[in-house]
């Protein structure tokens, strides 16, 4: 598998501040890789280094097989990008802004403009001056500029910012379609773990300039803490019965019993049977999964990791801002 993006020990310092600290990552061709981090974590600085807008203090960046250098024309013919808030020339219309983008990418056919306008749902705004667009439509125009020349690689910084729920779904489907049907590689950044988990095959968690962890969807699910929450009329007796057969328990503030050992979590039916036999039948039995938000905070050390009320029963929850 070839790497569409590869960085080696990428460092960016501004005086004594280290914005990006030894980030090494590989993004495979055709995958969606998401950078996840808080504001100021180093996502945009890294993206600007990938695009040759900022010179790394040390380390190297290779994009589509070309080592990135400041001011170079390579390899940008095959790269579309959106960095931070999208801006356009306010006095030009949506169409004219795209015409500007087209002319800066020689070889792009004029009809590509109409196609991308339709694809991004901007048909009703094609003749509207960009300065009069709503934030959501300005975001769509920014994405249209990135997609105009059918790039092999898309580098998108917070691509769903400013979009309404319908827009978020549309863009998500568009990005998935691009990778699945056209083999486009996408590197995106976001601070919304729920959104990222629906799109990305791999997630890189970045905090204070460091890449803390890279994981895929399955690993994300596996790494999240789970617990079995049990309620019984006689809590003390229930805990004794569980301890007696080797299930360590803790008592939560709300009076429920919590079990975190894998046997209990994977076989709650056996726990129920055990409690019934001990004459303290459970009044409630529930497997709770750590929320994405909690997982992220625990990972970056902003939370002590204690399992609390932020656990969620069942599958991932969408749109949880971290």
């Amino acid at each position, binding site marked *: 598998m070839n790497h569409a993006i590869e960085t080696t020990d990428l460092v960016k310092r501004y005086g004594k501040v280290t914005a990006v600290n030894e980030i090494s990552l590989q993004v495979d061709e055709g995958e969606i890789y998401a950078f996840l981090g808080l504001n100021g974590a180093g996502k945009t600085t890294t993206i600007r280094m990938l695009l040759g*807008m*900022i010179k790394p203090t040390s380390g190297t960046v290779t994009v589509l097989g070309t080592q990135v250098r400041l*001011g170079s*024309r390579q390899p*940008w013919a095959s790269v579309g990008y959106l960095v*931070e808030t999208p*801006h356009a020339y306010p*006095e030009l219309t949506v169409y004219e802004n795209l015409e500007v983008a087209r002319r*800066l990418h*020689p070889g792009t056919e004029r009809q590509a403009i109409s196609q991308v306008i339709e694809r991004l749902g901007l048909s009703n705004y094609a003749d509207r001056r960009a300065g009069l667009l709503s934030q959501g439509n300005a975001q769509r125009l920014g994405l249209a500029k990135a997609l105009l020349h059918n790039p092999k690689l898309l580098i998108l910084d917070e691509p769903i910012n400013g979009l309404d729920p319908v827009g978020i779904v549309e863009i998500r489907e568009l990005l998935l379609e691009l990778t699945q049907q056209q083999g486009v590689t996408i590197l995106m950044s976001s601070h919304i773990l729920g959104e990222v988990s629906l799109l990305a095959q791999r997630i890189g968690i970045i905090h204070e300039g460091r890449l803390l962890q890279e994981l895929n969807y399955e690993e994300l699910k596996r790494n999240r803490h789970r617990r079995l929450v049990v309620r019984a009329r006689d809590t003390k007796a229930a805990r004794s019965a569980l301890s007696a057969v080797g299930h360590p328990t803790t008592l939560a503030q709300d009076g429920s019993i919590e079990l975190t050992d894998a046997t209990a979590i994977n076989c709650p039916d056996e726990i129920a049977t055990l409690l019934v036999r001990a004459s303290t039948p459970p009044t409630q039995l529930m497997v709770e999964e750590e929320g994405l938000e909690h997982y992220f905070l625990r990972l970056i050390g902003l939370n002590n990791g204690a399992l609390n009320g932020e656990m969620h029963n069942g599958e991932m929850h969408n749109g949880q801002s971290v």
Partner: protein
Amino acid sequence: MDNLSNALWIELRKAARSRMPFFTAVGFLLLPLIDAFFMIILKDPELARNAGLISTKAQMIAGTADWATFLSILAQGIAVGGIFLFSLIGAWVFGREFADGTLKDLLALPTSRWTILLAKFIVTVIWFVGLTALVTVVALILGALVGLPSATSELILQGVGHVAFTTILVVAVMTPVAFFASIGRGYLLPLGVAILFVLFANVLAVAGWGGYFPWAVPALYAGAAGDPDAILEPASYWIVFLTGLAGIVGTHLWWNFADQSH
């Protein structure tokens, strides 16, 4: 040059769509109007007496109402006003990309940054030279309308040539405005620097060092302090040329090698 025609089209379209060409034209057209007004005052002593202070000022600037004086005042106006006009145009053409946040869309492209910069320089110069040409044509019409005494076509051509070379000098000394718009990431720095240029040009010209201060040379050449041949040396023109070169090279280096983190 890769894709220069497209880069030029883009810069011209951006300029054409804005109100800046109109506003800069209106502003600069004040120059021949004021020039013609001075000539009217100089031509008619009665009006000069009634005009009070303005007539005094007019007497200080020019002695007689004739084509040579008229075109000399125009050249001086272009030398000084041109510095402000060029900085305004340059600030808009270069600084707007920073102020509007559109610069990042120009940085990772198959069209080189140098091509985009060159297109910007060309459009700025076309814009400025176009306005000075417009102002000169309007001045010639106004000169005829106010009834300046007839002059030989050779004298008028000489005066127009003087204006044209003054314009070239202004263009040369003002390329650094692109650099200041870039490092200042907007409009303020280039405009502020232009004011400083004119301020220092006046001070240094009075001190007798104007020939070595590039931003004083256009006005001195235009005759602001008397016979330019007595003040300017070949070195003065070299300094102007090198300043122009430094402005282009500095802007190019900054766009290509400085971190663009905004």
